[in-house]
Each structure stands twice: as C-alpha cells, then as structure tokens.
C-alpha cells in the first residue's frame, strides 16, 4: 500500500502543457481553467451514483434523526429538548447504559487479551501450522447475527453442549443457571469474541509479519528471549493496530442489538427487550410509536459512534485521506 505512482498533486489537466507554454498569456490561463473545470465535472460524474447513495443513506438519515429528535412526532409540534428529557428520565436508560458499558468493557478486554496472545503465538509457530490455527479461529466469523445466538443457546445448555464437562465442574445443571452464573454481559461478550476474534487475529498477524526482520534479528543477537521479544518489541511495534481494534470494538459494542434481542428465542424467561441502548430506541419507535424519543436515543448513540469515527480519521493516521 505504498504511494509509489501517485504524485502529491495530480496534474491539473492533460499534460500537453509545459512550463514554457504556460508563460502567462490570458488565453492559456483561460484554457487551463476550462480544463480544470472539465476535470472536476468528469470527477463528479464518476462520483454521482455514490454521492446519491451517500446523501440518501449517510447524510439524510442522520440529519433527519437529529431533526426529528427536537419534535413531538405525535402532535407534530416543535418540542425543544423534551424528547431528550423524556429519554433521560426513563429509568431503563441508566440500566441500558450500565449493561452496554459492562458488555463493552468485558468484550474489549477479551479481545485485547485473546487476540494479541493468539496473534503473537501464531506468529512464532511454523508457517503451515500457524496458517491452520489462524484459519480455525477465522471460520467462526461465518456464524453471525441470528446464527450465533442460536448456536450459543445450545453451547450454554449443559445438556447438549460440547462444553458440558466445564459446566458440570461448576455444578451448573441447566441453561438458566449457566447464564446466571456467567452473566448476560459476559454471554454477549463471549458470542462477540467467538465471531470476531478471528478477523482481528488476521489483521494483527498481518501487522506482525510486516515488522522489519532486522529489528528482530538484532534483538535475537542481543540475547532477547522469545517471550520478552513478543512483549517488549513486537507488541509495542504493532500498538497502532491494537488500538484500532480496541477503538472499533468499543464503537461497535455500543450498538449492541441482535444478541440480546434474539435471546428470547430460548423462551420468555430470557427475553430482554430493553437490555441495550439500541433496543430501548427500538422499543420507543415500535412499541410506543414515539419516533421523537426514539430519534433522540438514536442521536445519542450515533453521536458517540461518530465522535469515535471522526477521532480515528482526523486524530490518528490509520486511514489516509491524502495520497
């Protein structure tokens, strides 16, 4: 991903124009400007389909939700901040916040510990074996959304689970005891770790393979042992990828919806319809028909997610804007 062929500033028009020719006649300047304009028009023609979609599904929904959050959508009157007040006064909001933050804390810790450890170990394994292990961790990524919940409802049931022995060890006899013992936040964190760890192991492993061999060689010559090398050299050198993983996981974790929503598949005892923030926003729109409060809640979670995104793009250099 080097910037080899890309000049810092692409030529303004076609290159028939040499420095000598552009010696200042007004005619030439006009021609150049026209060329520049044509160039911009061409670019926007290429961009048109995407820009339409960007407006329709990026900018407009966000703007509309923000706008709606200031209206009483049932009477249609401007309501100022009252939707936000209503949402903040709802006793369930605090609980959902606590739930989601607990979940994010557990999930991100699991990801940090598990993904870093496995990526580093895989990096030290013989290549073939390492690839096999990496593939194994990656495949559960195919088990997403609805399927991951169905699968885990079985995995958490001591009567059918391949991990039944583990539950027996702790004296847990049925699914409810297991879920009670682990806690819902940890259950969702486990589901997330199972499905998403593999993708990030691939990313971190890619970062590890790209590290300069000279540095490793020098460390080895200085008598650095493998564990110290991983801890003191490799992990610090890929910290940017690690930080990206943590930050993106936080941004996504805050949006939890599908897992708690589908837990009710196992029976009404487990059904939770306001466990996470997004569920609460959904409840307002679909059970109460109050789009205003729903929009206010969406705006709050959206603001969280977009500030993280803006910070990643502007405050770090993970993704490049300039060629």
């Amino acid at each position, binding site marked *: 991903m080097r910037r080899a062929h890309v000049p810092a500033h692409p030529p303004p028009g076609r290159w028939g124009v040499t420095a000598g020719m552009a010696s200042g006649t007004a005619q030439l300047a006009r021609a150049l400007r026209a060329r520049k304009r044509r160039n911009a028009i061409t670019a926007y023609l290429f961009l048109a389909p995407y820009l339409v979609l960007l407006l*329709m599904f990026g900018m407009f929904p966000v703007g509309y939700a923000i706008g709606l959050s200031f209206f009483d959508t049932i009477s249609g009157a401007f309501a100022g901040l009252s939707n936000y007040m209503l949402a903040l006064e709802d006793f369930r909001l605090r609980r959902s916040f606590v739930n989601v933050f607990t979940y994010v804390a557990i999930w991100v810790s699991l990801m940090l510990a598990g993904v870093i450890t496995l990526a580093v170990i895989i990096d030290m394994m013989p290549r073939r074996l390492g690839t096999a292990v990496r593939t194994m961790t*990656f495949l559960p990524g*195919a088990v997403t959304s609805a399927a991951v919940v169905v699968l885990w409802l079985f995995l958490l049931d001591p009567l059918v689970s391949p991990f039944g022995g583990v539950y027996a060890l702790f004296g847990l006899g049925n699914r409810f005891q297991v879920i009670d013992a682990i806690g819902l936040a940890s259950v969702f964190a486990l589901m997330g770790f199972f499905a998403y760890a593999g993708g990030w192991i691939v990313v971190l492993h890619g970062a590890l393979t790209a590290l300069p061999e000279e540095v490793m060689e020098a460390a080895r010559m200085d008598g650095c042992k493998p564990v110290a090398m991983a801890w003191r050299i490799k992990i610090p050198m890929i910290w940017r990828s690690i930080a990206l993983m943590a930050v993106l996981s936080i941004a996504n974790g805050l949006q939890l*919806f599908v897992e708690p929503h589908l837990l009710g598949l196992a029976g009404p005892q487990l059904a939770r319809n306001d466990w996470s923030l997004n569920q609460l926003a959904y409840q307002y729109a679909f059970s109460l028909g109050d789009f205003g409060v729903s929009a206010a809640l969406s705006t709050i979670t959206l603001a969280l997610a977009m500030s993280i995104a803006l910070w990643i793009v502007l405050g770090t250099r993970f993704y490049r804007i300039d060629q």
Partner: protein
Amino acid sequence: MSGARTTIRRRPRRKLAFWQLAAGLIVLFAMCFFGLPLLWLFLAATQTDASLFSEPPLSFGSWENVGQTWTNLVTYEGTQLGTWALNSLIYSVGGVGLSLVAALPAGYALATHAFPGRRAILLVTMVAMITPNAAVVLPIFLEMNLLGLNNTRISIILATAFFPFGVYLAFIYFATSLPREILNSARVDGASPWQVFRWIALPLAKPAIALIAFFSFVANWSNYFLAFVLLSDDELYNLPVGLTSLISGARALSFSAATGIPVRRPEAIQAALLLVLPVLVIFLFSQRFIRTGQLAGSEKG
C-alpha cells in the same frame, strides 16, 4: 519408564521451555473454543430432538435424521424457506451489484482526479465507513417511513448499496496499483475519460472488485437488524429474519417439551447451518485475500 530413559539417552533433546508449553496449551484451548462449536453445529444437525440429549455431544446421528429434519423444516406451514432464501439472494446480489456500480467509479475519481471537494468527500466516506451500521438502522427506518418505502425490497437493496468501505478499498486500489503512465498515454491517444475508466482502469481492478464483492456479500447475507426493522411482511423476510421468526414462532428452543410442532431443536440447528454455510464456503475459498491487512477496515467489532 525405561522407554523414556532410552529416548533421552539416544537423543539428548533440548527441554521444552515453559513458554512453549504455555503457548501450546493456549493454542489447544483456542482450537477447542473456536473449533468445537462449529464441529458441534454440523454434527448436531444429524441428530433427532431426542437423540440430541441422549447421545453424547459431538456424536454423529444419521443421514436419515438429516433428511427428516430437512423435510420438517421445509414442509412446516409457517416456513417459506424458498422465498426467504431467494430474498436473501436478491438482497445480497442486488446490494453487491449496486455497491460495485457506485464504489468503483467513485474510488477511481477520488484516486485519479484533483477537484474541489475531494478531501471532504473522502473524509465523510471514512467517517461513514467507521460508524457502525447498527447506529444508522433506526434513522434509516425513520427516513424510509417518511418516504413510504418501508417494507419494500428496494429499501433494503438501496440501503446496503451504500457501502463506503467499498469506496475506500477502490480508492486505495486505484491510488496505489494503477500505473499513471498507462492512463496518460490512453488520454494522449484521445480516449475519453469514460473510455479510460471502462477499458483500462476497470480491467485492471479485478482484485479490488473481488475484495469489495466479498465484504459486501458477507455483510449483506447475514444482515439481521436492518431487515428486521424495515420489513414487516413475512413474504419479504430474508433468511436471518425469517428463520428466527420461525424458531420463535414454533418455540423450537424453549423448554416446553411437547409443542406438537415438528420444528424443534434439530430444525433450528439446520436453519442456522443454512445461514452459515454460504459464508463459510466463501471464507474457505477466499483465504487468498484474507491474509491481507485490508480486513482492518471491514472489521466491525
């Protein structure tokens, strides 16, 4: 014991370091954690509702059971498996197709043209790409409600066709792997901008196309939240929404023993497999791309 001693005498091997032992154990544990559930999913689909409990976990039932379960799943009155699968396919293929149509020329223009507004478009694209999809699902619902497009096929396809990560991938690809000299000489030879894109840039962009299609398809195929919120007519459900509504309607996973409905646990498992298999197959065949660091932008979580 004597056997061990002879081994030692014959080949004085280095002692296994503690960290190697620990690493081995960790890998073993990880293989169990990631591997056993997948293996179990496949094996459990061969059991009946009763043998799922009586047989030890991870044992093979019979192919007959697989057939019977499948028949139950397909013939149950609430099931519209064919319709849902077809819908999933329509939504995924439509979403992938449109996202390619939008992303490739956009990425090309951003990478090869200098024009006012370029930086702003890139910035917005990246913020949209990093913002989790789930954050805009309810706003999109509110918008569709306004436009009267709720509960239509086109709403899902259009919403998933907006794929900023695809634009970013195309942009990176065209910016780094497209030799400028080729574009320039084509232009000197009098090719129009569209011709340069269509006949020179696009044919060279096959890897980028594959990558964008891969990520877009995987995201669309398992899309639950958006489809669940936008679609209320069960004729329009995609597989994830249809199958979960079937499972919860038949109470296939709840404790109540006899519901008299033929959709029980094995049927739920096969339904989940149906959802997982296409993506699993794509994963296995796309090992080639997967090793690149490009995954970093797609990982949502």
